[in-house]
């Protein structure tokens, strides 16, 4: 079995090399038979990697402890879900997942484009397979998942595996990495299309529409992955809330930021033929950052709360990253004439310029995150001292950037292309702006003194109001014409231009998330040691430790506290935070108990017993408004799905700078 797996990977490697060469040469010399054979090799690579993955998964599920990977990441007593999740629970398996997903995407690209984009598809295939070759080198020669346990020349089996890292044994954890991988790997496709079109000097820009879907879907996966990670961090203790600016978190955020910038600025290219160089740079950067993120999580160049797998694959990644950067820079410089802009900026207050500033801010944000993440490496190179920065640095830079972006979210979709009149500014922004100021005044009067939180709440109202106005105005116009009720008219409106109104919905999701982020300004925290029967207060809650229990199951040993929660003397519920200890891996975890409400979460952690075992150590937190982050996420998900559904009235893909009516139709403020 395991030999078959290793053989599949090796064959896949050979075929990927062939597919790369055949596609590149076939595209260059215009030899259709080479191109087609390259495409068939892509499908074969997918089949072979599927076989290899299936063998690994079978080994994990059946508990084949002769395999090093299985012995290290699975054990007999783990639930089936986590046995399966062990596929991406370690270095070798997760690299195989990367490869497999890439081959899956490549196969989809080949199958869906048998008749489209023929002129430059060979280059797309070659780019995809070039990346595939790199990962297959890792799978086949550096981090093989099919190593066997051996003593001398005998293959032996471990009695039982050490199990998946207990921190990974949480439902969100079973889907968080594949989501992120779907995102990371998915960005290869838009990059391959952009690079392919550029190499072939493709005159027709219809491929922009093809990859818009890819980019959006991938972006959505990436968003899901990041948010699931945040949700996991929040519910499984030890990572410091939902976001801690940890290098690994940052690594997943970086390509998300550049992809967000790309999704916005590519509209400029689609509609006005502007920012072409910028877009290709953005999509290349996104791809580069995806590989960089994969590298960062595996090489141990920066220390992180996530336990890194230390290994030698870092050098390979550095080489590949340098190669990508070199190829991108060369191709872009070599084809600059093809990327000439077809229009120019005319006014500071215009749609074009708001796109420009949106991109600028996102890029600065990305750069700041990168800078902060790599600061230990940078400072060591320049001063010889390894200096790191923490959340304070990130928050200080990112909070103002976030607020400015939030402001643009409200303003940008409503200012016109080219230039905007004062009258239209007044019509669109007078009431939302005034409303925001009134809200900020009211909050200030109510005792809120946190500057950023005040601004954030004000801006949230401002943006939400402008979005509401957009829906309202559009729906009102339809209602009169079609005789529908206002909500029905709003649905009809959305169906007529899914890109635009889906985009607004995504913006609304972002607004709700910002409400949640602003809540962090009012967090409360307390740690107490208490005996059974003891009580303590936090915020408006009174907590009473009713009893402490303990027990065991084959996977772990647990003890938990039963805590009654009261508000103004009224019992409102029982929370049961738990501590677990996993004997297989000799590790403990905390299962926090959270009382989730829309206004605030009460969050309890059972930190353990004091040394004399007489008192329980309980950490209590109140996190205001956190739920809105998750609600915002669902709205964002819905909005992106709306964007992905085709509009009922086909919006023509022509450029419409001159006709205000059509321009408004096409002003898709999509994300």
């Amino acid at each position, binding site marked *: 079995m395991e030999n078959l797996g290793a053989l599949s990977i090796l064959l896949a490697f050979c075929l990927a090399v062939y597919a790369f060469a055949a596609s590149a040469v076939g595209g260059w010399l215009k030899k259709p038979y080479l191109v087609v054979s390259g495409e068939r090799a892509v499908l074969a690579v997918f089949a072979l990697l599927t076989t290899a993955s299936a063998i690994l998964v079978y080994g994990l599920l059946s508990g084949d402890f002769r395999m090093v990977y299985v012995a290290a990441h699975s054990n007999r007593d783990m639930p089936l879900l986590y046995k399966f999740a062990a596929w991406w629970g370690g270095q070798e398996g997760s690299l195989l997942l990367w490869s497999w997903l890439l081959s899956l995407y490549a196969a989809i690209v080949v199958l869906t484009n048998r008749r489209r984009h023929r002129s430059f598809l060979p280059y797309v295939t070659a780019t995809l397979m070039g990346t595939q070759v790199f990962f297959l080198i890792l799978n086949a020669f550096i981090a093989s998942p099919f190593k066997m346990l051996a003593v001398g020349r005998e293959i032996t089996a471990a009695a039982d595996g050490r199990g998946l890292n207990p921190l990974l044994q949480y439902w969100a954890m079973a889907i968080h990495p594949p989501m992120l991988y779907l995102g990371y790997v998915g960005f290869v496709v838009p990059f391959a299309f952009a690079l392919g079109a550029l190499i072939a000097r493709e005159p027709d820009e219809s491929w922009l529409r093809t990859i818009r879907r890819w980019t959006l879907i991938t972006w959505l996966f990436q968003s899901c992955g990041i948010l699931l990670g945040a949700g996991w961090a929040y519910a499984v203790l030890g990572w410091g809330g939902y976001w801690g600016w940890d290098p690994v978190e940052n690594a997943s955020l970086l390509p998300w930021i550049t992809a967000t910038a790309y999704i916005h600025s590519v509209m400029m290219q689609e509609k006005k033929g502007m920012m072409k160089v910028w877009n290709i740079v953005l999509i290349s950067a996104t791809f580069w950052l995806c590989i960089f993120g994969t590298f960062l999580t595996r090489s141990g160049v920066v220390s992180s709360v996530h*336990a890194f797998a230390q290994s030698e694959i870092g050098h390979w990644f550095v080489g590949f990253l340098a190669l990508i950067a070199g190829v991108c820079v060369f191709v872009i410089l070599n084809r600059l004439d093809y990327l000439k802009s077809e229009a120019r900026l005319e006014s500071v207050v215009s749609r074009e310029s708001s796109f420009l500033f949106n991109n600028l801010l996102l890029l600065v944000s990305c750069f700041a995150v990168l800078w902060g993440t790599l600061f230990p490496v940078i400072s060591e190179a320049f001063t010889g001292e390894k200096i790191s920065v923490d*959340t304070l640095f990130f928050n200080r*830079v990112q909070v103002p950037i976030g607020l400015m972006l939030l402001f643009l979210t409200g303003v940008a979709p409503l200012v016109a292309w080219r230039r905007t009149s004062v009258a239209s500014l007044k019509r669109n922004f007078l009431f939302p702006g005034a409303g925001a100021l009134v809200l900020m005044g009211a909050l200030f009067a109510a005792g809120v003194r946190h500057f950023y939180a005040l601004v954030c709440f004000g801006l949230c109202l401002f943006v939400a109001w402008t979005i509401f106005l957009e829906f309202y105005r559009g729906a009102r116009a339809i209602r009169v014409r079609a005789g529908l009720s206002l909500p029905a008219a709003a649905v009809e409106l959305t169906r007529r231009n899914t890109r635009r109104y889906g985009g607004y919905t995504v913006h609304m999701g972002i607004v709700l998330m910002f409400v949640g982020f602003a809540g962090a300004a009012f967090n409360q925290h307390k740690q107490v040691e208490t005996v059974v029967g003891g009580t303590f207060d936090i915020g408006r809650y009174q907590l009473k430790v009713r009893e402490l229990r303990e027990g065991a199951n084959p996977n772990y040993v647990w003890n938990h506290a039963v805590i009654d929660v009261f508000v103004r003397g009224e019992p409102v519920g029982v929370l049961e935070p738990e501590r677990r200890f996993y004997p297989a891996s000799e590790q403990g975890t905390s299962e926090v108990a959270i009382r989730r409400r829309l206004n605030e979460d009460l969050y309890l952690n059972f930190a353990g017993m004091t040394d004399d075992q007489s008192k329980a150590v309980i950490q209590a937190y109140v996190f205001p408004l956190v739920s809105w982050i998750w609600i915002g996420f669902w709205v964002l998900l819905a909005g992106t799905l709306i964007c992905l559904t085709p509009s009922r009235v086909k919006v023509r893909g022509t450029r419409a700078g001159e006709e205000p009516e059509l321009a408004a139709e096409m002003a898709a403020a999509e994300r």
Partner: protein
Amino acid sequence: MKTYGKFAALILVVIGTLVWLAAGGVRDSGTYYKTIGELRQMGAEAQGKRLRVGGDVEEGSIVRTGGQVRFVLHQENLRLNVIYEGTDPLPDTFRDGAQALADGKMGPDGVFRASKIQAKCASKYEAKPGTGAAAPSRAGV
């Protein structure tokens, strides 16, 4: 060209502000990585600077009292007393024998006051003989 001038001015203002904020952020949160040995050599100089010290948590040295956690970090034969006074809960990986990074300041009494602790799983978990497998990684990302 006038429009482009306006653009340049706006961009400069935005970026300038952010650079200024970033510089402040680095100044206020910059933390120096030191080994226990280097910390000893710095002597009184070490006080007041934000430092990050790494080492192994000495077996049986973790003592929890009244919201404080005391423990000893050791590296080869150098030892450092640490008091953790932070608000974040300690990571689950923090326990006897774990590799830990303590983030904080050196007190005048020679006790390191940490406001943050990062910990990796103990090395005995990483290197079981014959497996050659690396530490448990948080699944890739």
